[in-house]
């Protein structure tokens, strides 16, 4: 029991460091900084690199890591976050998400994706008190954190810049009027947060004994939940939240096993968001101070597309490409079509309802697994399993997401991100291995196995999807959903219960995500949880934002560019993600309505 407690303290230690950084940046900029998440992985990898490859001593490697992380943080803030944060906090958040993907994958290219054994620079398990075992390493970590927190709180309480940070986070406008250089304050906060992230990364590597470039996201998400638990913007809250979460998690793993981790974290997040949206120490945010309601992407006017373009696109995609009989083009085309279906269905959530859900991999996975189970266990025909899989995805995702519609802005994006990860984690818990031999579709007794057949099936589904989405946009329902997306308070004042319509939009999107998942499963004939990654969710969001967030046909264009072009250019997966991230940042920065929408 005491061992578990110590494990909890050590993990909590890491979360507390991370949460303080997240809270600090949120306080002064009103942006949830996903890029911060990457510093956990990056800090670990850099420390590993400095120590094992360059042979530096630990006491030299640690400050080097902090300096590199701090410098990177400053660059990110200057180039990406600050230009957006003033006007479009939600866009800034999305950009930090892209930055974090870029950093993770750049680090994977630099250090490769494998798990590295982190050198035991300090002895562990060498101290005993009663039947408790712990090490010098643990003591150093805990006391370093204690010192860092003490210095931080003295700096914030008595330092001139520290006071300016607090003043800025409490009232930015008033701080400006006192002559406080808010820009500088934001830079300083970013630098501190990034260095803390790096430090936390080194600690987690020391604690678990391995380092991996992709490990940042999970720790980051947990640290974010810790910051939310404590109250975003409250630094004391972040520390408390970090330790509470670390201890709860340690006991959860002790009793329910390691796979329960993400589920525990997500449940805590949801409970906090519903029961006490301001966190333990934070104040409940008022509507008036919540700058993140609604969508930032509604501005501008879609380009007019002449009728003949539609006809030409239909002919090219539906007739010319299948007639080419080039398997490579057709297989790539099938991928494009499936993502176009998922993304087109997603426009009603992201564009019209203004909910930037970041976890579409969840419903996609549900559709894929349901379809596999229905055809293999219950011997359903593919044609029946396809819509049923969509329906199941819609129902399950809606039930799981039902608690989150009351929350707003950043929280809703984070909650959906957590939801996506949790769904995949639950699936992994139930079906740890992959599923093989998923049956191929049959057409009156003939197995459809050729790339042309898959392509045509998916093309047909895409056409239906676009028609349905077009119909929804035109309908009264579509207009109500749009009204919720553009101004939820105004919609509420007109008697529209926004959360119900958000949930409905999400269900529609989840339905098409499920359909897409089913199509994927029957094309691959093999699925496992590693297919349904964060990358998949990011890809869906990027496609939609690139094409114009509320335009279903924009999703088709986005899918052609992001999947078709990437495939034809034969980019490696890591490089692709970096390109996705860059595209996302550039589009959000310079063409926030998407490439098919003229800026207004």
């Amino acid at each position, binding site marked *: 029991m005491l061992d578990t407690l110590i494990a909890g303290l050590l993990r909590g230690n890491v979360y507390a460091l991370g949460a303080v950084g997240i809270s600090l940046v949120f306080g002064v900029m009103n942006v949830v900084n996903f890029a911060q998440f990457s510093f956990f992985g990056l800090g670990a990898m850099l420390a590993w690199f400095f120590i094992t490859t360059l042979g530096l001593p630990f006491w030299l490697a640690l400050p080097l890591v902090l300096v590199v992380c701090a410098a990177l943080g400053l660059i990110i803030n200057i180039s990406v976050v600050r230009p957006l944060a003033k006007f479009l906090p939600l866009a800034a958040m999305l950009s930090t998400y892209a930055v974090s993907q870029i950093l993770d994958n750049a680090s994977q290219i630099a250090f490769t994706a494998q798990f590295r054994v982190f050198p035991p620079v300090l002895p562990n398990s060498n101290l005993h008190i009663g039947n408790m075992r712990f090490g010098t390493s643990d003591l150093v970590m805990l006391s370093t954190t204690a010192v860092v927190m003490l210095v931080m709180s003295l700096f914030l309480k008595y330092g001139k810049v520290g006071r300016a940070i607090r003043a800025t986070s409490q009232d930015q406008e008033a701080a400006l009027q*006192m002559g406080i250089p808010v820009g500088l304050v934001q830079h300083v906060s970013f630098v501190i947060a990034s260095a803390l992230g790096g430090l936390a990364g080194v600690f987690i590597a020391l604690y678990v004994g391995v380092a991996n470039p992709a490990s940042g996201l999970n720790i980051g998400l947990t640290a974010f939940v810790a910051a939310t638990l404590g109250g975003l913007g409250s630094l004391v809250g972040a520390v408390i939240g970090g330790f509470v979460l670390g201890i709860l998690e340690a006991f959860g793993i002790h009793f329910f096993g390691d796979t329960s981790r993400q589920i525990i974290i997500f449940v805590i997040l949801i409970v906090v968001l519903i029961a006490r949206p301001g966190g333990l120490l934070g104040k409940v945010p008022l509507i008036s101070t919540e700058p993140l309601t609604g969508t930032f992407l509604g501005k501008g006017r879609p380009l007019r597309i002449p009728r003949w373009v539609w006809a030409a696109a239909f002919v090219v995609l539906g007739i010319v490409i299948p007639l080419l009989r080039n398997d490579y083009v057709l297989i790539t085309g099938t991928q494009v079509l499936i993502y176009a279906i998922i993304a087109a269905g997603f426009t009603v959530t992201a564009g019209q309802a203004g909910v930037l859900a970041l976890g579409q991999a969840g419903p996609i996975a549900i559709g894929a697994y349901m379809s596999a189970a229905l055809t293999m266990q219950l011997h359903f025909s593919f044609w029946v399993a396809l819509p049923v899989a969509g329906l199941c995805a819609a129902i399950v995702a809606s039930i799981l997401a039902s608690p989150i519609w009351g929350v707003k802005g950043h929280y809703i994006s984070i909650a959906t991100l957590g939801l996506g990860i949790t769904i995949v984690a639950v699936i992994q818990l139930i079906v740890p291995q992959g599923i093989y031999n998923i049956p191929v579709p049959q057409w009156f007794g003939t197995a459809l196995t050729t790339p042309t057949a898959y392509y045509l099936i998916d093309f047909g589904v895409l056409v239906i999807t676009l028609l349905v989405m077009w119909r929804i946009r035109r309908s009264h329902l579509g207009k109500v959903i749009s009204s919720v997306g553009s101004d939820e308070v105004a919609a509420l004042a007109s008697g529209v219960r926004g959360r119900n319509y958000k949930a409905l939009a999400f269900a529609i999107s989840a339905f098409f995500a499920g359909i897409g998942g089913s199509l994927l499963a029957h094309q691959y004939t093999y699925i496992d949880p590693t297919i349904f990654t964060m990358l998949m969710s990011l890809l869906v969001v990027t496609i939609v934002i690139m094409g114009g967030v509320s335009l279903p046909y924009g999703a088709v264009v986005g899918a052609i560019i992001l999947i078709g072009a990437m495939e034809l250019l034969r980019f490696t997966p890591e490089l692709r993600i970096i390109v996705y991230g860059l595209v996302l940042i550039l589009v959000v920065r310079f063409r926030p309505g998407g490439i098919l929408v003229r800026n207004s």
Partner: protein
Amino acid sequence: MTDLLALDDVNVYYGPFHALRGNTLTVGEGEIVSLLGGNASGKSTTMKTILGLIKVKSGTVRFEGEDVTRASTRHRIKAGIASVPEARRVFPQMTVDENLLAGAYTRRDRVGITEDLERMRDYFPRLAERRRQEAGTLSGGEQQMLAFARALMSRPKLICMDEPTMGLSPKLVDQVLDEIVRINKELGVAVLFVEQQAELALSIASRGYVLATGEIVLKGTARELLDNPQIQEAYLGKAKKA
């Protein structure tokens, strides 16, 4: 009388929206000047322009003869302009003392700051009593005093006050106006303040400007403005006799 602050033909745009239309305004040393006008007439924009929080499209802003049109907020505060923001905007989770120190952010003379902290405590005894209390827990009137004291911490020659009486009870409004006069008389600080209630404003101001849709439509001494039939009709509720 030399002009402490002089705005000359200032134009300000919010995107395509013409927010200030060639406005010219002066505040003399040690003077109390009132800025009147209805909602969205450009009063707050004028205040922000003087503080350098909004870029000027054309025209000049001068302070003590120096052209500060392109100068940063920080520079202007150092030069002697201070602000009491709209709705007070004290830092709610910082103590009274910390709020005062935030007001002295642009200063570097530690000794002087400590002295001024003492002076403010003498000057506003209520704040001295509550120096370790979080500003968010103060009453509206106390918060207003804190906002005044915070502005004074930068040793200004001019304080710009954006609706200092906003949201206060009538009794407190009188107190706040008395306080403005006291600061002006005893400390010799010039005051430019925005006020919706013309009669109250002109009771303490020596001169006034009336803004309407971004333009200064009337100006004059307090007496002239009070006697002006347009003002009486629009702001004082004395309708013309039919």
